[in-house]
């Protein structure tokens, strides 16, 4: 094993803190290694029914009628529910209440739930789901950034398809352009991505003798879940208890409502415990993803190698629901300059509704998409200036005393320069060199 250059710091820290810099075993690791940990999908309660969801399966449509009679006649079926059966607001959403627990008159994404079934076993529930007939009238689906920006396109929600526009402004853009010796301009696209936690979403709900709806779920945020579940189901807050079950991976997606409201509704209606476990396919279709973004960036630097300006637009596809999209996409704009000092900035971000899958929180929260653009721009600028990409970054990185794009003053927590210097030391100790990119035509 080669010597890890981070050892030095780890040694320094080891003495100073009781936990930082030390190996700590996770308190729940052994029961997990033994296979003893019970995730929701492993739990069984006496009298438990099994829930299944009928998904919209079409991106944009008006629901004319739903026939559930045939489904209800499947032996073993206890409930077939549609939006009409939801006792509360039927709405949820982390930022705004723009998602329906069960679709009402509109379907806005293939991942919208349309109906629910509870049955004695999963097969009966599946059979009943297959027998629900949804009469739909298809609408023009809004699937691209251009569709969403088209003022004549159908509105997915009442407020229009541009949910939010944010701006970052700093310095004098024209001055920055005038002072540039090199300018690069490019369009970047990042794709939608699923978190793929190894545990597909699952929930188990029951009403206890005191009338409290208990919901076990692998969630990242039980209290915020409760604030969404109770009004959606028309219950007072103190009649809903969310119990956080072991989470088989979340990575941001289990910040949102997953199975909670559906399994809770089924338990309320059947007065039986109900467990609902997604298949992997359902998990891929439903719930939030990482935002696809389109980023048009123009970046400049002076002959001295100092960045002069960033002029950029970022379009984020949040799908049929905002979830945390407005924050994620705004954050991509705030981080569009990366960890670099840029004196003149114009960045606009647009959070767009589409009929694609809803996007929300995922590790990095918009910063990773921005990094694809700003780091590619940095490499191309360095190349154009004939500088080493490392030296170019060292020259421009944020340091204590400098301010971020939004004016936040850097303090001792700003580690980019130390990181770059460590890379430089590592490379020179091993005589590693940057491969020069082939000359651009």
């Amino acid at each position, binding site marked *: 094993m080669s010597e890890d250059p981070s050892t030095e710091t780890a040694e320094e820290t080891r003495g100073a803190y009781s936990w930082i810099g030390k190996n700590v075993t996770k308190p729940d*690791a052994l029961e997990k290694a033994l296979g003893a940990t019970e*995730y929701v999908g*492993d739990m069984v309660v006496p009298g438990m029914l099994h829930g299944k969801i009928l998904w919209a399966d079409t991106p944009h449509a008006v629901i004319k009628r739903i026939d559930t009679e045939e489904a209800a006649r499947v032996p073993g079926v206890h409930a077939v529910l549609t939006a009409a059966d939801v006792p509360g607001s039927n709405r949820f959403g982390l930022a705004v209440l723009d998602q329906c627990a069960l679709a009402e008159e509109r379907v806005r994404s293939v991942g919208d739930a349309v109906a629910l079934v509870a049955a004695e076993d999963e097969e009966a529930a599946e059979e009943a789901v297959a027998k629900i007939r949804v009469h739909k009238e298809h609408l023009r689906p809004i699937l691209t950034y251009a569709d969403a920006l088209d003022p004549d396109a159908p509105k997915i929600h009442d407020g229009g398809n541009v949910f939010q526009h944010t701006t970052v402004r700093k310095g004098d853009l024209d001055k920055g352009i005038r002072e540039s010796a090199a300018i690069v301009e490019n369009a970047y696209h990042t794709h939608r991505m699923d*978190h*793929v936690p*190894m545990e597909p979403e699952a929930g188990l709900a029951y009403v206890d003798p005191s009338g409290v709806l208990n919901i076990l779920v692998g969630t990242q945020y039980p209290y915020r879940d409760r604030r969404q579940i109770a009004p959606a189901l028309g219950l007072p807050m103190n009649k809903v208890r969310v119990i956080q079950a072991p989470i*088989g991976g979340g990575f941001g997606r289990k910040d949102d409502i997953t199975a909670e409201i559906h399994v809770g509704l089924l338990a309320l209606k059947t007065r039986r415990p109900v467990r609902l476990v997604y298949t992997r396919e359902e998990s891929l279709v439903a719930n939030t993803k990482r935002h696809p973004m389109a980023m048009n960036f123009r970046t400049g630097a002076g002959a001295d190698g100092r960045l002069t300006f960033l002029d950029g637009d970022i379009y984020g596809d949040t799908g049929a629901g905002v979830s945390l999209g407005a924050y994620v996409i705004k954050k991509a704009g705030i981080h569009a300059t990366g960890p670099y000092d840029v004196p003149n900035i114009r960045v606009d971000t647009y959070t767009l509704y589409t009929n694609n899958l809803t996007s929300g929180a995922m590790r990095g929260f918009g910063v990773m998409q921005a990094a694809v653009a700003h780091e590619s721009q940095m490499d191309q600028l360095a190349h154009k200036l004939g500088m080493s990409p490392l030296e170019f970054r060292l020259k421009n990185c944020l340091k204590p005393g400098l301010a971020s794009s939004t004016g936040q003053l850097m303090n001792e927590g700003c580690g980019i320069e130390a990181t770059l210097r460590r890379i430089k030391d590592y490379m020179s100790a091993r005589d590693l060199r940057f491969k020069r990119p082939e000359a651009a035509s």
Partner: protein
Amino acid sequence: MKQRYVLRVNGRGMEAAAEAHESLLDVLRENLRLTGSKKGCNEAECGSCTVLLDGRPVVSCLVLVPDAADRDVVTIEALATDGVPHPIQRQMVEQGGVQCGYCTPGMIMSAYALLLDNPDPTDDEIRFAISGNICRCTGYGKIVKAVRAAAVEMKGQAGNGGAAS
């Protein structure tokens, strides 16, 4: 129509009433309540359901229960003996190979199968052995380290004195 199947699971004869199209994984989990084997994809992509069938690792989601009848099945629940974790289980904990834990039982069964065949694997052999088990948390490095540490520990236990190097 349900039929009775006799399975030999973890050294014990067990009966399960199931339909022929049900998977070994579902019967282990639902009928026998051995829920250590996980259902991550139900189509052989993730490895979370790995068990040993006649000594070989298989994805139990694709084994139909009649096909497992009268054969030896070993699940994660059998690895600890008298409450003492297997060295792979202990090393997964100590080396930080466990995070969310959902892939862990399948991962350990793949590693267990490897060490039965090859008590002194190289890192490449360990990586190959667990290449059918997806972990989204760890990045695999600590899992490989745990399997290697377990192999060293087991050689020591076997009295070969293999731990010194």
